[in-house]
């Protein structure tokens, strides 16, 4: 050694360009790297959200140019409207019924698919299909399946004799049936993702623990409800949280299948907000309707994350 002019030494010297000291500085590099994400969130989530808050506290319409601050009076007036109440009720019904069905079905599917059998990967791929296809296309397919005249479902059920010759339900044309249809399609759409999350949760339980429960004499249901489900609880809660927020803020299925009808029986807050704010031009009313669930969903999110953290394992 003692000779500083080694080849490596030269290369290090060459690499030191004018700005390299900036790149080497973590205080500079960190914010630089995270900037795209921050800008994205601020521009496409933060700004519209603040705008929505501002609109909901005003009497602004599509045609107006002035901003008049009116406080919570828009909220007060929409709460009085029967359409809003129906939409609120529908939102809660739609969200909780479909989430309950999704959780139970996803859990059962995951328990079945975690077993070893022939063609397991083929079946898994099939079940993932609804999630892979573009959702609007999938829902248009359902629109056809549930068509009032050409419904293949009705045709099939009639041909197999399950429906009588005069029985031809209008899936999307009767209030109760329409809600049931919407929920079915939504379950169809959410199930693949929920099942994948459940599968991951199942796989994360150490085999030793299942074996220990077996040796300790626990039967299938004791293992399921005292070992598997509690140990999957954190991941299930996170899945349910996302499901609730996603379901309560989704519009595609309703927009494509029923547009909120018949008689507002499938109108939910988001579709209501869309028709009020965009179609009818009442920006303030639309914003207030859309934001009505914001505190509730925020509370749900915080609550779920807290539970998830408390029941975290090992």
């Amino acid at each position, binding site marked *: 050694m003692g000779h500083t002019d080694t080849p490596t030494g030269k290369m290090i010297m060459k690499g030191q360009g004018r700005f390299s000291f900036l790149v080497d500085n973590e205080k500079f590099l960190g914010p630089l790297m995270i900037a795209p994400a921050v800008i994205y969130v601020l521009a496409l989530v933060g700004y519209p959200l603040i705008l929505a808050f501002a609109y909901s506290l005003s009497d602004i319409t599509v045609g107006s140019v002035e901003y008049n601050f009116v406080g919570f009076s828009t909220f007060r007036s929409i709460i009085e409207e029967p359409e809003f109440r129906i939409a609120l009720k529908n939102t809660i019904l739609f969200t909780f019924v479909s989430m309950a069905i999704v959780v139970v079905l996803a859990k059962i599917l995951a328990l079945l698919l975690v077993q070893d059998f022939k063609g397991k990967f083929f079946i898994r791929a099939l079940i993932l299909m609804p999630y892979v296809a573009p959702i609007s296309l999938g829902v248009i397919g359902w629109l056809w399946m549930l068509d009032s005249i050409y419904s293949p479902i009705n045709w099939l059920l009639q041909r197999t004799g399950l429906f009588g010759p005069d029985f031809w339900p209008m899936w999307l044309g009767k209030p109760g049936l329409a809600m049931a249809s919407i929920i079915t399609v939504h379950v169809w759409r959410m199930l693949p993702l929920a099942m994948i999350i459940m599968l991951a949760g199942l796989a994360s339980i*150490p085999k*030793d*623990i299942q*074996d*220990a*429960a*077996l*040796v*300790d*004499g*626990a*039967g299938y249901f*004791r293992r399921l409800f*005292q*070992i598997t489900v*509690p*140990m999957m*609880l954190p991941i299930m809660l996170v899945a349910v949280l996302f499901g609730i927020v996603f379901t309560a803020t989704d519009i595609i299925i309703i927009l494509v299948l029923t547009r909120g009808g018949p008689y507002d029986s499938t109108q939910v807050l988001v579709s209501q907000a869309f028709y009020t704010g965009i179609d009818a031009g009442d920006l303030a009313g639309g914003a207030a309707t859309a934001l009505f669930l914001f505190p509730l969903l925020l509370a749900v999110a915080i609550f779920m994350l807290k539970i998830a953290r408390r*029941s975290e*394992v*090992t």
Partner: protein
Amino acid sequence: MANVETKGLEKHFGDVKAVDGVDIVSREGEFLVLLGPSGCGKTTLLRMIAGLEKPSAGDILIGGKVVTHLPPRTRGIAMVFQSYALYPHMTIYKNIAFPLKAISMPKEEIDKKVKWAASMFGIDRLLKRKPRELSGGERQRVALARALVREPNVFLLDEPLSNLDAKLRASAREELYRFQKGVEITTLYVTHDQVEAMGMGDRIAVMNKGTVRQLGTPDEVYSDPSDTFVAGFLGSPPMNLVKAQDRFVGFRPERFLPREMHGESTDVESFPLEVSRIEDLGASRLIYGRLKERFNRHPVVANLPTSFTHYSIEPGGTYNFAVPKKDVKFFAVENGLRAEPISI
């Protein structure tokens, strides 16, 4: 109380025979160690006895009853896993109570039993905690208490000490040994650690490549190995195995000593040793060297006690070492099994 017996037990994973025809019979209340290198099939064998793996062939008997196709819960066994496998979402109390709840025992009785098992292992004050709040040693005791609480006929332990640090392992070994002698429940103990096996086992089954190579007391498997695998696996350093004619000649390093240490006895086999290296371990010295041309200059090790002070041994020198004739074992070259002695 019950003994465990396997008859021609086999387990195949695809083309691999993890367990390849194992016949062992445990005695009632004994501490039987399954010892072997990793991949020798000892854990698979234990899991088959537990009912967690289905045998490909053969039978398992517990207490004289064939249990080969019975589920684990009907076998009257309890198992402690290497990872302890405590239920992370339950308190220690609930962990220990779990096997009792599974047999629908009344609440007061469960309470009594849990407290009894906990006091056996000195973990009474931990009952309200969750497993993640416990140290490794405490978790291991909880796992043992959970196994004990249902008073099984057979204990199956799968390397229960391997996750403890070295210091704790020594005291846990002692504790486990005394506990087993206290309850006198037949125990099958899987380990790859020969110190645990020699120290705790009433008998040791040395396994390799899915078969039991020798089943005997610690002294038998150590001093009287049935083949070259057992001879080479036990002991640190293991038995010297030197080829002579159609035999392997085996002798333990601690019996391979300077001629003077065997006194006036003439019943010894002499091996001049050319010393190449000496390791001073404090309690003893390991002398590495080579035998003469007669044994193809085969490398060997001698384990010399510090009590040897007759003369100093230096690398480069050649010294007259010897082994008592009764401590020299002979193995056939073609299959590694014990063979008739020959004169060398």
